[in-house]
């Protein structure tokens, strides 16, 4: 890594103009305490050994890097590999971060962890981490999301977590984050907030990235072993941006094409999407400075995506920074394109992807044919699609 990126972020969490800490003063001591604890334990042999052992024996790492032969033949062009984060315990990459933070919270002497969740994946992962670490757990979820993801709500309750319905604002992920921040502000002395993505106030963007960067570390070794060379292109979906940065981070110095795929919803021109880079502008939201979907008065706009995990008004600050450096490029995929890719992967490979990950597959379908046959693409298959089956059936007018 070059020296410039080594100094990023600065001591206050700034990635260039992005990031920082925009929170009520009440939370500042907790953020400083968290930053110190994270710095200490991220170098602590005992902590790293515990995390490493659980990554292997509990999460099931390393996850496979699977050559999707039939998909490759079907599309034509570049060889397509899937990094199988869908095979992680709880069905998505979210557990990499949630378990790491739960272990950290326990070492910090916290008795309780809280989290927000949209689709429910991060909520399930956090409830799992809490059950494993023996911590009390409360998950905030918008009432609209609870309706769409009732299976995950029940899973969290089975895992011993309290699921609290958020009935204000748009009743979705951003409102759940507001409510989790309010809880943290109130119970900061005994509670740790397990933020689910590379967003929010420093040190969350750095800490979550580090817990997720194992994805890319493994993929780098696996592809060199399989192909004898590094890949030509990496593709991942971007909601907050944790699975994408998790894959990309180990390849940043390699000068490889990296593409982040945002949710295009019903299309950018419709205004109903969650493509922050295509339709947003610089703003300050939920703890950091980043690209934000907002109106001229600085109020945050409603977003839309068929995939709840990408349906968020802002994006991790490091993504903005890496975009400015031309390290990562960003594009977007519509609901319809993602739904087609969702079905295609099931048919071609026998793998039902999460709707989030289907966005990455959809973009691959667009660009792979134009690439030479010896070139290699790695897609981060960030989660499995079980959670989406009911919603997809509903969209297609099928009663289960």
């Amino acid at each position, binding site marked *: 890594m070059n020296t410039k990126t080594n100094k990023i972020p600065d001591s206050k969490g700034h990635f260039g103009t992005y990031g920082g800490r925009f929170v009520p003063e009440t939370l500042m*001591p907790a953020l400083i305490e968290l930053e110190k604890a994270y710095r200490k334990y991220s170098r602590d042999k005992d902590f790293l050994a515990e995390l490493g052992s659980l990554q292997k024996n509990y999460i099931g790492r390393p996850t496979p890097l699977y050559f999707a032969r039939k998909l490759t033949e079907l599309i034509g062009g570049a060889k397509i590999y899937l990094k199988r984060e869908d095979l992680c315990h709880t069905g998505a990459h979210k557990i990499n971060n949630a378990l790491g933070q739960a272990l950290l919270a326990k070492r910090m002497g916290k008795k309780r962890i809280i989290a927000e969740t949209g689709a429910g994946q991060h909520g399930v992962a956090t409830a799992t981490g809490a059950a494993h670490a023996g911590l009390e757990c409360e998950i905030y979820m918008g009432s609209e999301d609870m309706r769409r993801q009732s299976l995950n709500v029940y899973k969290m309750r089975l895992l011993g977590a309290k699921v609290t319905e958020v009935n204000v604002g748009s009743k979705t992920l951003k409102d759940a984050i507001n409510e989790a921040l309010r809880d943290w502000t*109130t119970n900061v002395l005994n509670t740790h907030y397990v933020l689910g993505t590379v967003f929010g106030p420093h040190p969350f963007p750095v800490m979550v990235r580090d817990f997720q960067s194992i994805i890319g570390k493994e993929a780098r070794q696996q592809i060199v072993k399989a192909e004898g060379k590094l890949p030509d292109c990496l593709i991942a979906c971007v909601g907050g941006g944790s699975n994408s940065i998790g894959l990309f981070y180990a390849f940043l110095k390699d000068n490889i094409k990296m593409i982040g795929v945002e949710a295009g919803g019903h299309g950018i021109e419709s205004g109903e999407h969650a493509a922050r880079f295509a339709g947003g502008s610089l703003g300050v939201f939920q703890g950091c400075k980043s690209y934000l979907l*907002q109106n001229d008065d600085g109020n945050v706009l409603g977003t839309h995506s068929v995939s709840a995990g990408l349906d968020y008004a802002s994006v991790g600050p490091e993504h903005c920074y890496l975009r400015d450096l031309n390290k990562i490029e960003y594009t977007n995929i519509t609901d319809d394109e993602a739904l087609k890719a969702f079905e295609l992967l099931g048919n071609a490979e026998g793998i039902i992807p999460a709707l989030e990950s289907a966005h990455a597959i959809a973009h691959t379908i667009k660009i792979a044919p134009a690439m030479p046959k010896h070139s290699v693409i790695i897609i981060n298959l960030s989660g499995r699609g079980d959670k989406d089956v009911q919603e997809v059936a509903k969209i297609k007018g099928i009663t289960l």
Partner: protein
Amino acid sequence: MNRIEQVFRKLKKNSKKAFIPYIMAGDPAPDVTKKLVSDLEASGADIIELGVPFSDPLADGPTIQRAHERALHNGVTLRKVLALVRDIRQTSQTPLILMTYYNPVFKFGIEAFVKEAVHSGVDGVIIPDLIPDEAEEFIAFARQYKLDTIFLLAPTSTEDRIRKVINASTGFIYYVSITGITGSKLLMDETMKNTLTSIKQLTRKPVAVGFGISNPEDASAVASVADGVIVGSVIVKLISEGKDIAELTRSLRRAI
């Protein structure tokens, strides 16, 4: 000398404390705000805080969250609040403080906002999600155009944070009485007294206390240890129910 400083000096001379009520601009309707401000003045408010509605008010409890929603529904924006202040200033000299989240200010343009706020007759600004560490530019423009910057302290604040907030604040310092959001229950405990004492040892700037003060008894207890008492949720709640606030605000004034 600016209006906020004058108010605290005058009160101190008379051994009195400041009564600082909060209302949401444009709630229940934009044309009612001016009348509410004049009612508050008549009840003896020394400084008035005007809330600026925002889509994601993460430091506010349910009562004020709903006021944000109502005001946004009424089409109120930061720009319109500034116009309201200009209108209020035609007839009132009471110090006015805006309480706004940071993004509307950031989107407006920091210098443009500070300039426009001062021009409109705003005396100070409270931004609950802006800490001094991130406020360098805002503070510089506020000093240039003479706008008070009121930062917040909390029961969790360490001495290092207290010093930072004191240095960045002008007008007064806003001490958040509880670890929590607006409208929580007040806890008059040793932490509050101890933190206020340690703040007072470090500065001669006035310290006003807010969050959780919901009746004359609370107000009286807080006034005994602070220079000012800020009351929001309970007033906003009465307004939302269409009730008259005069009885409450007068009893708060008497208690302070």
